[in-house]
């Protein structure tokens, strides 16, 4: 639907994520590396789940609509479970890597904390997931036409973009909560992450009733955002001080020397 929609949807979907990347990750090469590794892990999980799905589709009855819907739901659930499994695998890998990094580095302290790793890996997962969700749609939005000739809703592109935005941010928050839960051995936290991921994925089946899928997703997004903030050590007092820029001790203590 022309270049305007293409750029609009791209920046809606990736804008905040790119901003976060630029301001918080791009300066530190170590973080960049872990981000890309996280993206790679997500990619591998997608590869496995798509392999399974492809095989099941080939051996299924292609003409039966109910079977295909069932297969789709099965595919989605499997993909979610595999992604979370790979997130756990990445966590274990990072724990091991951290010990090795500590041995190699010349400083006494860890160059990167597990909290930062959680954030970075979550963002990596989010980037790759967002890319696979929306790039196909964006390329079709460049042409002169918009969705609707077969009766579909016109808001396809923009709701896809908002959904992708939500997914990317959600992956980031899930990363933080997940790693925190693994550190503290709080298994119900893990379960909550998996279940909320499943809910967000399955709620997209009510599309094209976009309100039905976007609103629950954004509710879960805000809940997860709050939880991640609490996991990262924030509290209401911190929030007030942060937003009004009054916490001078914090600033002085953490300002990095040039």
């Amino acid at each position, binding site marked *: 639907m022309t270049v305007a929609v293409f*750029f*609009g949807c791209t920046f809606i979907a990736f*804008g905040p994520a790119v901003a976060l990347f630029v*301001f918080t990750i791009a300066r530190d090469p170590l973080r960049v590396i872990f981000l890309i590794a996280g993206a790679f892990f997500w990619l591998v999980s997608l590869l496995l789940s798509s392999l399974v799905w492809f095989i099941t589709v080939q051996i299924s009855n*292609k003409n039966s609509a109910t079977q295909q819907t069932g297969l789709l739901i099965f595919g989605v659930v499997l993909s979610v479970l595999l992604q979370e499994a790979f997130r756990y695998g990445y966590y274990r890998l990072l724990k091991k890597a951290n010990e090795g990094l500590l041995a190699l580095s010349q400083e006494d302290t860890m160059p990167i904390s597990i909290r930062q790793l959680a954030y970075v890996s979550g963002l990596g997962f989010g980037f790759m997931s967002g890319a696979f969700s929306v790039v196909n749609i964006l390329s079709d939005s460049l042409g002169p036409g*918009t969705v609707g000739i*077969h009766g579909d809703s*016109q808001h396809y592109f923009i709701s896809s973009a908002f959904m992708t*935005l939500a997914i990317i941010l959600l992956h980031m928050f899930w990363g933080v909560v997940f790693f925190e839960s693994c550190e503290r051995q709080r298994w119900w936290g893990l379960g909550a992450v998996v279940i909320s991921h499943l809910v967000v*994925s399955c709620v997209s089946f009510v599309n094209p009733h976009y309100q039905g899928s976007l609103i629950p997703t954004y509710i879960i997004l805000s809940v997860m955002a709050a939880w991640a903030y609490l996991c990262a050590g924030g509290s209401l007092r911190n929030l007030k001080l942060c937003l009004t820029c009054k916490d001078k001790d914090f600033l002085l203590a953490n300002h990095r020397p040039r």
Partner: protein
Amino acid sequence: MLKGLMFLCVLCSSVEQKIYVVLNETVPCVRLLNATHQIGCQSSISGDTGVLHVLETESDLDWILSSGPHPPYMVIMETAFFNRSVMMRMKNSSRVAGVAVIISKTGLADNFSPHTTCPNQNTGVYSESYGSDLANCNGTVWNPLGNGLSYEDFSFPVFALKDENQTQVLRKCYEDHNQRVNGSAPQYPLCAMQLFSHMHAVTDTVTCMRRTDLQNRFSINPEVLCDPLSDFNVWTSTRPLNNSAKGHAADESVVIAATRLDGRSFFWEQAPAAEGTVSGIVTLLATIQALYPVTQEAPPPRNIFFSFFQGEAFDYIGSSKMVYDMEKNDFVIDMNNVHSMLEIGQVGLRSGRSLWMHSDPVSRQNKSVDTEVSEEEGKLSLFSHALSRSQPLPPSSFQRFLRARRIPGLVLADHNTSFTNRYYESMYDDAENLNVTYPPGLTPDEQLVYETDAAKSLAEVATLVARSLYLQAGGEEKNLNNITADPKIVSHMTSTNTHTHTLTLTLSLSLSLSPSLSLSLSHTHRHMTSSHTPPVTRFVQYILANLTGTVTNLTESQCQNPSELSTENKDLFSYFWVSGPASVNGTREPFCVRASVRLSKAVSPAFELLEYGSRNYSTWTESRWKSIRARIFLVASRELEVMHILIKNLIVSMIFILIYNNACLSYFTPKRQNKLYTAFFFFLHI
């Protein structure tokens, strides 16, 4: 996951299929160039998009050209509006993105000829130096109903909608989204269409061939921009001629019987040309069928040379090439061998059962030529009428022969002054125009053998032509009664598929090189590069082989290399390996046919002489193109697009302001990198 946004179907996961409906059957108008001009239609390289509007009434025309609020428009034109005045108004308007013409018989005007009023006026025989008072149709206007649309240059694409189902899809989209309600403008989203028909050649043949030559010389991957129109003439003779002996043939006096093989229309490869061309082809084929056995039993002194010229619509490509070869001594005969000529023009619409013989008054000023022509007329005068001495020749291949030498000749036609064909060189010159009608209730097999009135009429003409050719070649009158064209064969050759109203040539034998038994004559005018010959040339060749050839008992390898055998002569004959008729149990027994049918190359001499701006020869070329397709979709309003940008800017700005200005997050980044981030921030606002 967004997988849920896919519908239930596993395979159609493409977003593109939600947006576009691709139209499968596209009939475009393409660009042709000659020495000085370009004609036809062109789209921009990424297609032309416009909001659909159906042109049914005059108010629709005003809406499209001046008052409609959503220009540019893609016009769906009803048949009645496809005329010169409307198309010229579209051409001059900037609010028209393209035109799709509905081709149907409902609303068709009484006449429609997109050709010019004076066909081939610059390459005929009449010029300033020869019959100047008859040149440029000063004497007779041959096609007065012609509106010249085929020779206009349009800067937007023009497609034809022949498929009724597809037209219905377009109408439905228009009615659902674009229809005006109580005179107010329709609301977005609107149905739009995009047509792709980008042509690579521009300006004229000289420019295009120069650029092609440059490409061929200097480019690693040369890109050819246009191709000269070229194909093959088909010829045969009652006595075989030695194909390897070029130049003057000793002791041969030849009577040429000729007709044209091609037609054209406004759109590409759509030229049924029933009255314009097929009537002539079928008549000449029936003539050959009637004449051939008698010429083998009682051969007349002179040879009879039958020729089908290709490309005559485009400044006499085939006939000019043959004359050129004859003059250059590069053909089996030369002009000295030619005794006289008889050409069959448009003979299908014989009202009152009369036929007209056209001759050239300027050459008849010469006494000897005059006597010869009068003799020829006498032989044909059974029910045909001679014309006055002041009337020029109609557009015909004979004119090119006259340019070379003043030989006696006649052109047979069903019209006296101007054409009786009201749909000359248009898509509507089909079987219905020729009055080919069957009584109701016949099966297709019965229709194949039913003798229609049109078939009987053409058979009569063929009989007349055959007998007079025999006499012209010096044959004896006593054999004349054996020469009769069989109406059954004529009706075989002109059986109509009543559902599609196209004229088909059908054969009783099936041939090894063609997959199907019947083929339409729709694309008769030319072909692109060397790859394939249009069906009609092949079919005339094979029908001639069927009618005039003999079956031999050679094997397949012998048939393909007959020079190895002493009894066979590759110079005198062509050999065809034919798959034979289908027998009862479906098997076919192939065999070898020997016939004196040959093809000769029909490309304008201008391209051999490299005179691309030639005034004497045809310089027509056809542009090349990459893709021709059409699709429809919905377009959203500008407001929706602007909203997208605003939302995007809003979100991005918020995030950036939050992150950038927030002192506590300077934990992550030092403040000194201001400039870089400012630049990035502004970039995102584009």
